[in-house]
C-alpha cells in the first residue's frame, strides 16, 4: 500500500510541475484564443537567461530574477509589436503558425546569445526525500516537489485573482472572446496582448527555474511543453484551475500506468499514456474538464 501511495503522491507532485508549464499556455489562450507553440521555448529562454546573467555577473538570485523578468517582459512587448499586431483580426490558425515561427526564433536566439553548454541552476533546494515523512510513514515525498507544488498553488491563486477581480483581467477575457468587439468597446487590444505575453513570460520564468533546477538548464527544457499538452486537453485550454487539476490527473495517471501496466507491455508507456488518456477524454468532453462550452449559431 505504501508503494502505491508513493507512486500516487509522486505522480501528483510531478503533475504540478506539468501544470506550471500548462499555465503559460492557458494565459495566452485566454487572451487571444491562440495556442502558443512557443511556450516551451519561452521556458528554455527564461531559464537560460537567468543562469546566463547569474554566471556573467555573479548576481544574487533575486537580482537575476528581476533582470530576467525584465527581459521576459521585453520579449512579451516585442512579440506583440512584431508578431501579433500585424495579425490582428487574422484567423486563429495564422496566429498559431506565427507562434511556431516564434518558437524556433526564440530557441535559436537563446542558443546564439548564451551558448549550448548545460548550466547548473542552484536554488538552494536539494531534490531529496523529506526525512520526517520517510521515518514516520516510510513514504518518499520530495522536498523539491513539495516546494514546487506550493509555488504552483500561489501562482494559480494570484492569476485567478488577476483574471477575475481586476479590470485588466476582465478585459483579457473580453479580448479572447472577440477581438473586434473588444476593440469596439474601447479595450486597448495591443496593451492587453503585451500584458498577457509578459505575464506568460513570468510564468515561463517560474517554470524554467523549477525545471532547470531539477534537470539542469538545457535545450531539453523545450520538451516540457510536450508534458503540458495532455494537461491542457484534459483540463481545458481556458481554465487556470483546469491546468492544475489536469496536471494532477495526468501526473498521477501516467505514473500509475507506468508502474502497474507498463510491466505487462515492456514498460516505457508513460510518454504516450498521458496523450491516450487525454484523447479518450476528448471523446467524452471535448472542451476539457473546466473549458468553456462553445455553442455556435448556424
Amino acid at each position: 500500500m505504501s508503494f502505491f501511495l508513493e507512486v500516487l503522491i509522486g505522480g501528483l507532485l510531478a503533475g504540478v510541475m506539468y501544470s506550471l508549464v500548462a499555465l503559460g499556455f492557458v494565459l495566452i489562450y485566454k487572451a487571444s484564443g491562440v495556442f502558443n507553440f512557443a511556450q516551451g521555448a519561452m521556458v528554455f529562454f527564461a531559464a537560460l537567461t537567468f543562469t546566463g546573467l547569474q554566471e556573467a555577473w555573479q548576481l544574487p538570485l533575486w537580482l537575476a530574477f528581476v533582470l530576467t523578468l525584465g527581459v521576459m517582459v521585453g520579449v512579451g512587448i516585442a512579440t506583440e509589436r512584431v508578431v501579433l499586431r500585424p495579425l490582428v483580426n487574422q484567423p486563429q490558425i495564422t496566429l498559431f503558425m506565427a507562434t511556431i515561427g516564434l518558437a524556433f526564433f526564440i530557441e535559436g536566439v537563446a542558443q546564439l546569445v548564451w551558448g549550448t553548454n548545460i548550466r547548473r541552476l542552484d536554488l538552494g533546494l536539494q531534490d531529496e526525500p523529506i526525512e520526517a515523512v520517510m521515518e514516520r510513514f516510510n513514504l518518499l515525498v520530495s522536498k523539491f516537489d513539495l516546494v514546487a507544488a506550493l509555488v504552483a498553488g500561489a501562482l494559480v491563486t494570484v492569476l485567478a485573482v488577476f483574471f477575475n477581480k481586476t479590470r485588466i483581467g476582465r478585459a483579457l477575457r473580453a479580448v479572447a472572446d472577440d477581438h473586434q468587439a473588444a476593440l469596439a468597446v474601447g479595450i486597448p487590444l495591443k496593451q492587453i496582448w503585451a500584458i498577457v505575453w509578459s505575464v506568460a513570460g513570468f510564468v515561463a520564468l517560474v517554470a524554467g527555474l523549477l525545471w532547470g533546477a531539477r534537470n539542469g538548464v538545457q535545450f531539453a527544457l523545450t520538451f516540457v511543453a510536450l508534458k503540458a499538452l495532455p494537461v491542457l486537453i484534459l483540463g481545458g485550454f481556458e481554465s487556470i484551475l483546469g491546468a492544475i487539476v489536469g496536471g494532477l490527473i495526468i501526473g498521477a495517471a501516467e505514473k500509475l500506468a507506468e508502474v502497474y501496466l507498463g510491466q505487462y507491455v515492456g514498460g516505457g508507456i508513460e510518454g504516450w499514456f498521458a496523450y491516450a488518456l487525454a484523447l479518450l477524454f476528448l471523446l467524452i468532453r471535448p472542451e476539457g474538464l473546466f473549458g468553456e462550452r462553445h455553442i455556435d449559431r448556424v
Partner: protein
Amino acid sequence: MKTPWFQRSLAAAAFALAIVGGVATDAVAQQPTQFIGITGYRVGPYGANGAAFFGGFIDYLNLVNERDGGVNGVRLTWEECETEYNNTKGVECYERLKTKVATGPTAIHPMSTGITYAILDKAPVDKIPLITMGYGRTDATDGRVFPWVFPLLSNYWDNATGIVKFIAEKEGGEDKLKGKKLVLLYHDSAYGKEPQPVMEAEAKKLGFELKMIPVPHPGNEQQSQWLQIRQYKPDWVVLWGWGVMNATALQTAQKTGFPREKMVGNWWAGSEVDTQAAGPAATGYYAATLALAGKNYPVVADIEKFVYGRSKGGDAKLVGTVLWNRGMAAAMFTVEAVRKAQEKYGKKPMTGEQVRWGIENLDINAGRLKSLGFNTMLPPVKTSCTDHGGAGVVRFQQWTGTEWKIASDWMNGDRAMVRRMVEESAAKYATEKGIKPACMGS
C-alpha cells in the same frame, strides 16, 4: 608637393608586406589539401555534447595544420554541417559533403547511432568510411561484413561487459555476482536497447538477476522508473542514457535515496555535461570512458599553445573535458588513417578507399600514443579486417563533485563472448543483405 619620408616608407613597407603575404598565401593555396567532412551538431537537445566533441575534433585538425603544416605537407581543410542530431538532416549533410571535393570527405563521424544507421548502406556505394567510435552498429566490428564501418576503440557490447566486470571487481569477484540484482536503466531507443542481448547473456552466465527499465525520450521525468528501482532494491544500477536523461537519472536517484556509488554509466552517460547539470547529486557516480578526461597531456598543451595561443581555438572552457578529449582522439585517428594511407599510396590527398585501407591497418601502440602526445589518455589500437574496433577495452572514472577521477585501469569485458555474438549478428546481417563476408584488402 614632396611626399613625407614616413609616408614613402609606409608605402614601401606595405608593398613589401603585400608581396611577402601574397607569396605566402600562394604557397598555402598551392599546398595540396585533405578535405574532411564533418556532420556535427552544436544546437538542439544534444548541442552541448556535440559542441564539446566537435570542438575537440576541430581543435586537433587545427593543431596538425598549425604545428606540423598538415599531414606530410597535405594541409587539412574541413566543413562542418549542422545535423542537430536529426537523422534526416544527418543524411542531408552526408549527401552535401560527399561530393564537396573530388577525393570525398575522408571519413565521416556521424556521432549518432541513428544517423549511422541511416547512412550505413550509402557508405559502401559512395566509398566513404564511417568511423563510429563507441556507437553505431556493434556487429560492424566484423569488417568482413562491414568493410566501410569502423566502431573504433570499443563497441557497445565491450562497454556493457566491461561494466559488468567493473561491478564484479567492486563486489570482490565474478563469483560474488551470483544472486545480486542489477537494473539496466536505458533510453527507450535503438541506442538504449543495444546492450540488452549481452546483458542478458552476462546475467545467465554469472547468475545475477537483471531488470531492464526503459525511460521514454527525452527522459526529463523519471519518477516512476526510480520508484520501481526503489521497490526492486537492486545492488547496482547501470545507466544507459543520453542527454537530459542522465542528469535526471542522477537527480532522481538522489531523490529516491539510491546511492550514486552504486551507479555505473556507459560512456555516453559519463561526461561533464551530465554531472554538472546534476550538481551534487552526481558525486560518487561511476561511468565508463573511451578517452580519459583532463588537460595533463602533451597534446593538450600543444593545442593550447599552437591553436588557442594563435586565437584559432573553439571554446576554451571545454578543453580537457571528457567529450572534448574524445573528439580530439577521433580526429587523431582520422589523421593517422590518412598518414597510414599515405605510406602506401603517396604523400598526397587520399580518397575514401585509400583512407578506408588506412583505418583498417592502424597500429597505434603505446609508443606512438606517447609520440603523439596522448600518453595514457587512450588505449593502444590495432585494427584489422576482422577487428574494426582495435582495442575492445574500457576504463572507468568516478565523479568527485568537481572532476572525473580515474577508478580503474583499461580493462576488457568478456571479449570472447562479445566476439562470438558480433560474428553471429554480422553473419545474420550478411545473409539478410546477401553479402559474402570477405576482407577487402587494398
